[in-house]
């Protein structure tokens, strides 16, 4: 079985910001997970520094609550700490794995708390991309624009299904009810939408993905 994961997300190389810390800065996310599997706390800290920012932003978008978002991120990273030995890089990138853990946890929490909301965040809670290094802010801003641009190119019905599911935490059957559609229609929309989004992001990546240069 061969895997050909499309390269859609590449978290930024933080070599510049972390060159002070022993030898971890030059390691890939996957190598850090291997160190975490051996109980290396600094490697866990480095992973958090690379992925925690996006992880929390995602959890907050789904949960709309500081405390719950922190819980989701904390539980996901402790899951990483505990199960890193089983991570297989050929299935997913380490950052993707962590974000998948965070999302699953956030969705579980939001369903339990019955606090789902579909609207985008208002300007005040949105991240103005001012935290972190300038390099990181630039990368996040660029990547967000790229993905949001791809989302905008989806047919409305597909985009709506994906956004309500991923950011709103609605299940397919809940969406069918909410939108008054047959469940089969929702399933097809999600599949078609995600497949189209994959294409759009791939095209974008081929046109020249931009990543901050390492300066160390």
């Amino acid at each position, binding site marked *: 079985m061969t895997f050909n994961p499309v390269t859609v997300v590449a978290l930024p190389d933080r070599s510049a910001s972390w060159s002070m810390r022993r030898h971890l800065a030059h390691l890939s996310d996957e190598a850090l997970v291997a160190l975490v599997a051996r109980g290396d706390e600094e490697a866990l800290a480095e992973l958090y520094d690379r992925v*925690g920012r996006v992880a929390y932003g995602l959890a907050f978008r789904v949960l709309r609550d500081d405390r719950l978002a922190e819980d989701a991120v904390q539980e996901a990273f402790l899951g990483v700490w505990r199960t890193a030995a089983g991570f*297989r890089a050929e299935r997913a990138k380490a950052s993707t794995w962590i974000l998948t853990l965070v999302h699953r946890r956030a969705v579980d929490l939001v369903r339990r708390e019955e606090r789902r909301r579909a609207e985008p965040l208002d300007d005040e809670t949105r991240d103005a991309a001012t935290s972190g290094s300038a390099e990181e802010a630039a990368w996040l801003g660029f990547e967000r624009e790229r993905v949001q641009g791809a989302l905008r190119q989806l047919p409305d019905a597909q985009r709506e299904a994906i956004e309500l599911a991923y950011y709103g935490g609605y299940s397919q059957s809940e969406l069918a009810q909410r939108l008054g559609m047959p469940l089969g229609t929702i399933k097809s929309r999600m599949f078609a939408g995600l497949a189209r989004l994959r294409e759009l992001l791939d095209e974008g990546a081929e046109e020249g993905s931009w990543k901050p240069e390492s300066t160390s």
Partner: protein
Amino acid sequence: METGIHELTAGYALDALDPAEREAFERHLVGCDRCQEELSSFWEVTGALAVAADGPAPNAALRERILAEARAEKQTVVPLDSRRRLSPVLAAVTAIAAAVAIGLGIYSISLSGQLDDTKAALTAQESAAAVLADPTATTVALQAGSGRLVVDADGAAVLVLDDLAAAPAGKTYQAWIVAGQTPVSAGIFDTTDNQAIVSIPQVVPNGAVVAVTVEKPGGASSPTLPPLAASEPV
């Protein structure tokens, strides 16, 4: 074929399946290369959606809390992968644990040669994996033997033994829950490569000890020998 269960790959990647469907899809995934491949690429797309979520930055205290918690856990956890190499069976189960943590059952494949491919075995693997992967589960050290006992908030427990030779010829290992005067059997098991992952079928109550003895084939109604391995009280 882009209909039926294959189509659920998208809902699965978006964490939008209802529990029953999620479970059905995970079972399907074990034997479907195409869905595994599709899921891998869909996860990259949901990873991109995560980056685009536009949420605020975390409070700096969160980082310290996570690291402190990890450090505290380390003191009681026997790392699954300490300095030595994992044996295949433990590596496989650990892999399942991680896979379940990300909602992916596909690593069960690596166990199929070692365990009966029956529904019961698969269910036991899945529940063991779920407990091992549960970040809120507690890890209890062993007072005798090498390994650990992992117990989740509901009392579901998995005994991990990582240095236990195969039972003597004509004998079997049996697990016990010792809560009061009378130990209760928690089933019989064998080791593979000196290791065993034992899913305890009953709830392990607070204060109870899980112990292991050598018994006659099929197990005994109460322990006949002193335990070879035993956990600290849960």
